[in-house]
C-alpha cells in the first residue's frame, strides 16, 4: 500500500494535531454539561465562549454571540434558508440562488420550490462566474432570501461576495452565503461586509466532522429548525457538542494564523501541479478562472473520470471527479453543466484540492504518475489519438 497522497481537501481535511490535542480533555475529563449549575459542568461554558470568539475572529464578526454552532455545513445552510423563510411566515415567497450551489442549498431550494416557493437560479458563464446585473434584476419585493455560495466546492471559483452582499443589502433582502469552502482560505471581514447569514463547516478547515456554525448578524430574524432547550440563544436546541466546538475553535484560530503564508504556499503548489499537467497531458483544460488557492479542476478529454480516479488510487493519490460514473448518477456534475463545459470534458473532470499538509514532493509524485495514466486510458479510448467514431454520434 502506497502512502496516501491526499488531494481531496474540498471533500474533507485531516484534523490538525493541535485540534486533536485541544479536544482530548473534553472527552476524558471535562465532560460536564455547560448548562449545569454546578462548577464541574458550568465551568465548561467558558471554553464554549472561547471557541465562539475564535470563530468570530476568523470571520471578523463584531460579536461572538453572532456565532451559532450547528452539526455542520448542511445544517447551517438549512437553518439559514428555512429559518429565514419561517421567520417571514410566508409573507415573502421568492428565493434567489445560483445553479452551482452545493446540494445543501440546491436540493433544499428545489424542495422549497415543490412546496410552493418561487425559485430563481442564476446562471454562470464558462468561467463559472455570475452576471451581477442578473442578480440585481432578479430581486423583487417578494424576495425573501438570496443565498449564494462564497466559493464553489467543485471548481474553487470564488464569487465576489462583498459586491453581491452590497447589492442584496441595498434592496433590503436577507443575504446568506454558504462559505464552507471559503472560510479559512479567503479573508473574511463581516464587520464591513453586509452579510446576514454565513455557513461554515469544521471538517473543511482541519476541524472535526459533525460540527459547523452559522453566523447570524445581530438583528437578523431566524426561526430555529431544532426546537427544544435554550442553547445557542434559542437558535439551535440540544446540548452543545463541546469537544467538537472546542476543536472548531482551535481550527479557526489556526486558520486565521496561517492563512496568509499558507495561501502563498498553496498557490505555488497548485500552480505547479496545474502547469505540470497542462504541459504533459495534451487535450486538457482547466475549469474555472478566479479560484481558491487550493483548487484545481481539470478535464481530460476522451477519457472518463472514475477510471482516472481508480488508476490514481493505485498509487495512493486521492482526488475526486465530476464525472457521472464517479457519483453513481448518470449525468455529470450540475456545476460542470451549468458552466457549459461540454459533456465530453465534464465526464473526464478531476478535482485536486490541496491543504496545509501537502508537500512539494507529493505534487512531484502526482506529476510523475499521472501522465502515463492519462496516456494509458487514452490508448483504451475509441475517441483519442485521432480515431473517428462512425457510430451513432
Amino acid at each position, binding site marked *: 500500500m502506497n502512502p496516501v497522497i491526499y488531494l481531496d481537501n474540498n471533500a474533507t481535511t485531516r484534523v490538525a494535531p493541535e485540534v486533536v490535542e485541544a479536544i482530548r480533555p473534553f472527552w476524558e475529563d471535562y465532560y460536564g454539561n455547560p448548562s449545569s449549575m454546578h462548577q464541574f459542568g458550568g465551568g465548561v461554558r467558558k471554553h464554549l465562549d472561547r471557541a465562539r470568539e475564535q470563530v468570530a475572529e476568523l470571520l471578523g464578526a463584531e460579536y461572538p454571540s453572532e456565532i451559532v454552532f450547528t452539526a455542520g455545513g448542511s445544517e447551517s445552510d438549512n437553518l439559514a434558508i428555512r429559518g429565514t423563510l419561517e421567520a417571514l411566515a410566508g409573507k415573502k415567497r421568492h428565493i434567489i440562488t445560483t445553479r452551482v450551489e452545493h446540494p445543501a442549498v440546491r436540493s433544499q431550494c428545489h424542495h422549497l420550490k415543490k412546496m410552493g416557493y418561487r425559485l430563481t437560479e442564476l446562471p454562470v458563464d464558462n468561467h463559472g462566474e455570475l452576471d451581477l446585473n442578473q442578480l440585481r434584476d432578479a430581486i423583487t419585493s417578494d424576495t425573501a432570501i438570496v443565498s449564494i455560495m462564497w466559493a464553489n466546492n467543485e471548481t474553487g471559483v470564488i464569487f465576489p461576495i462583498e459586491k453581491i452582499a452590497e447589492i442584496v443589502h441595498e434592496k433590503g433582502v436577507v443575504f446568506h452565503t454558504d462559505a464552507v469552502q471559503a472560510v479559512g482560505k479567503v479573508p473574511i471581514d463581516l464587520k464591513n461586509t453586509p452579510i446576514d447569514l454565513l455557513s461554515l463547516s469544521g471538517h473543511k478547515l482541519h476541524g472535526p466532522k459533525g460540527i459547523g456554525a452559522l453566523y447570524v448578524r445581530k438583528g437578523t430574524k431566524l426561526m430555529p429548525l431544532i426546537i427544544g432547550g435554550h442553547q445557542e440563544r434559542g437558535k439551535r436546541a440540544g446540548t452543545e457538542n463541546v469537544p467538537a466546538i472546542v476543536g472548531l475553535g482551535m481550527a479557526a484560530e489556526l486558520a486565521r494564523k496561517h492563512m496568509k503564508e499558507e495561501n502563498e504556499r498553496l498557490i505555488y503548489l497548485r500552480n505547479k501541479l496545474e502547469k505540470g499537467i497542462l504541459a504533459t497531458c495534451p487535450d486538457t483544460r482547466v475549469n474555472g478562472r478566479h479560484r481558491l488557492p487550493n483548487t484545481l479542476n481539470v478535464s481530460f478529454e476522451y477519457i472518463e473520470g472514475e477510471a482516472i480516479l481508480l488508476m490514481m488510487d493505485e498509487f495512493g493519490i486521492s482526488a475526486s471527479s465530476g464525472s457521472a460514473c464517479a457519483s453513481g448518477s448518470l449525468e455529470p456534475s450540475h456545476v460542470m453543466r451549468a458552466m457549459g463545459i461540454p459533456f*465530453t470534458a465534464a465526464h473526464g473532470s478531476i478535482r485536486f484540492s490541496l491543504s496545509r499538509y501537502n508537500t512539494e514532493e507529493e505534487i512531484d509524485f502526482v506529476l510523475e504518475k499521472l501522465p502515463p495514466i492519462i496516456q494509458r486510458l487514452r490508448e483504451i479510448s*475509441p475517441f483519442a489519438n485521432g480515431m473517428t467514431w462512425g457510430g451513432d454520434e
Partner: protein
Amino acid sequence: MWDYTDKVRDHFKNPRNIGFIKDADGVGEVGSMACGDALRLMFKLDDDGKITEAKFQTFGCASAIASSSVLTEMMVGLTLEEAEKITNQQIADRLGGLPDQKMHCSVLGREALEAAVLDYRKRQGGELPEKKEESRLVCICFGVTEEEVERAIRENNLTTVEDVTNYTKAGGGCGGCHEDIALIIEKITGKPPEEQEKEVKEPSKKNLTNIQKIQLIQETIDREIRPILQKDGGDLELIDVDRNVVQVSLRGTCSQCRVAFFTLRDVVEAKLREFVTEDLVVEEVQ
C-alpha cells in the same frame, strides 16, 4: 467508492485485447461520449466461422472497461451464432457481478456484440434480420428506445423503474419518462412496478407546516370561496385552524341561510380539500 469485485479490478487494471483490428470482419460501435460510455468492438473469423480474435476500445468507467475486456475473452472460439447468445447477465457473472448502478455497462457490451455481428452480416451481403420498425424513444436524455427497455426487463427480470435505469440508463436524466417506464414494466411483467423508496413525484400537500397550511387555507378562502358566496350577498371568515379542523364563521345572507350546511360542505369544504389537503373538515362557529 464502488464495491468492485477483484475480477472487475483485474480486467480494469489489465484489460485484455485492447486495440484496433484494421481488417476486422465485424465492427460494432455503441454508446457515445456524451452519454459517458462508448464501446467499439471488433472481431475476426477463421475459416470455420469461429471468432479467432476480438479487440475493443472503450470510453468509460472501470466497469465499462472491465465488461468490454471480459467480453472479448468470452467471444473468442465461438461461432457467431454462439456469440450472439451471450447475455448481459453472463458478462456481469463472468466479472463476479457488477454493482446495480453499473449493470448498464454489461448491457453496453452485449449491444456492441450484436452491432458487430450485424455489421459482419451486412458486409457479407447475407440475409439480414428483417428491419424492424424504428422503436419509439422512451428516454430522450439517453436515447433509449422502448425495445431496449422491454428487452432489458425481459432478460433480467427487472421489476422497478430504478432497475431499468441501472440496466439501460433510461430514466437517469430528467426523470420525465418514469411513468412511461412503469407502464412498460407492467406490460411485460403483468404487474405494476414494485414500490421502491423513491422520491414523491407530486409534492404531497400534506407536508405543509402549520403556518403554510393556515396561509393556504386563507388564500383559498379569499380566492376560491368568498367570491362565490359574495355573489349571493354572503361572506365567510376564517376563525381558527386546529389540526385538520377549519373553523369558519358565515356572514351576510349566509348566516341566516337554511341551506348554509350545504354551502359549508359542498363549497367551502370541497374547495379547501381540493386546494389544501384532503383531510380537512369545516366547522361553523358563531
